[in-house]
């Protein structure tokens, strides 16, 4: 993988395209994520978050299933918005992207250990994790970035 990437860099020289290719191979592993002052300032991947994808991750029961706990007026076409967490209307105004990233990665780092919001890109999880999920995160780094991009649009 490394080899292919560096070949690509050489082949494409210093173009912007090459830079983003290099960076996307460079994905931050969950244990390497740095949280400072509640913020994760560096994106977890090189590819920018995709708002449409983020929307899907938010609603999809097999992915973020954020709607299980949060109402979101932007998705009024979807039935059944949960009430366990606060409404996310205006979340993009209340929080800067770097903090939204932390909330999604590991909500405990922003709220408290008591929060019921799962950590979506964290290995700090509960006991007796299902065997096939040990060492795995709920979402991928890219899905987190997509979500952050989407949440930032909720003004």
């Amino acid at each position, binding site marked *: 993988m490394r080899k292919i990437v560096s070949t690509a860099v050489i082949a494409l020289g210093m173009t912007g395209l090459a830079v983003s290719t290099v960076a996307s191979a460079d994905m931050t592993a969950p244990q390497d994520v740095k949280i400072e002052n509640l913020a994760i300032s560096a994106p977890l991947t090189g590819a920018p978050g995709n708002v449409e994808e983020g929307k899907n991750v938010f609603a999809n029961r097999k992915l973020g*299933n954020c709607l299980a706990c949060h109402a979101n007026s932007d998705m009024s076409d979807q039935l059944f918005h*949960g009430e366990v967490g606060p409404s996310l209307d205006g979340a993009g105004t209340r929080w800067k992207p770097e903090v939204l990233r932390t909330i999604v990665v590991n909500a405990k780092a922003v709220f408290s250990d008591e929060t019921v919001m*799962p950590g979506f890109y964290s290995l700090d*999880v509960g*006991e007796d994790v299902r065997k096939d999920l040990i060492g795995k995160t709920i979402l991928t780094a890219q899905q987190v970035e997509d979500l952050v991009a989407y949440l930032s649009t909720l003004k």
Partner: protein
Amino acid sequence: MNYSRIAIIALGAAMTASLVAAPVDEKLVIDGELEMTTRAPSSDGHPLPEVISGWHYRTESTRALEADTFENPGMLGIEQGEEIWNTVEGSEGKSCASCHQDAADSMAGLGAIYPKWHEASGKPINIELQINACRVNNMGAEAYKFDKSGQKPLTAYIKHQSLGEPVKVNLEEGDMQAWWERGKEMYYKRTGQLNLSCASCHEKNNGKYIRADHLSQGNVNGFPTYRLKQGNLISLHNRFRGCIRDTRAEYPAAFSDDLMALEVYTTWRGQGLSVETPAVRQ
């Protein structure tokens, strides 16, 4: 940093102002005759001020099904249970009725005081395990496997003989207190990739919707319950396992020490509520 602080304050304000879909304020009266206790003061040491039956959190149509014996689809299971009660099985040529005669007399009130201490095994015993003990020791029949054969209908039939009786567990007997402690640990243990405990949903958030589901206190007084979603009677340990599985965790075996302890503890939490078996849930 400043920005986040402000957001946290704003969030706090939003949360205190948030509306909770309250459990309905109505009475459950079966067939217009038997008034059920669906709200009761909680036991000493209980974290919630009042215990409330899951019935209050269901939709109007689901609540109506439970209030009418003829409409309650769980009653079919009770009829099956009655048949099994009277059916001879095993090498001793006996049925439950051979020893216990009419369940309406011999089983009255019993379903309300299980699980209880079982001296012989040195553990708590529930109705399902008591049935198995009778089958093996007194009937010369095989123990039912979990949720198989007559286990659910017969358990429901026996519990139904206590319909309306307030649930009460005796923690004084044997080591029941230690099992209660262990069950409490289970209740607050955060499990799985989603990192949730029973308390995350049923203590902190009862009364709220989690997607389409209106979260109740997770009381156990209606089990086995009839679940419309599955179109069948659902046993308590099946429900426990389902809730644990939903946190994306490995779940303990039915009737394992962990789940027996959880049964002792959750039964205590719902103490004072009427036995509703077969309750109707969605």
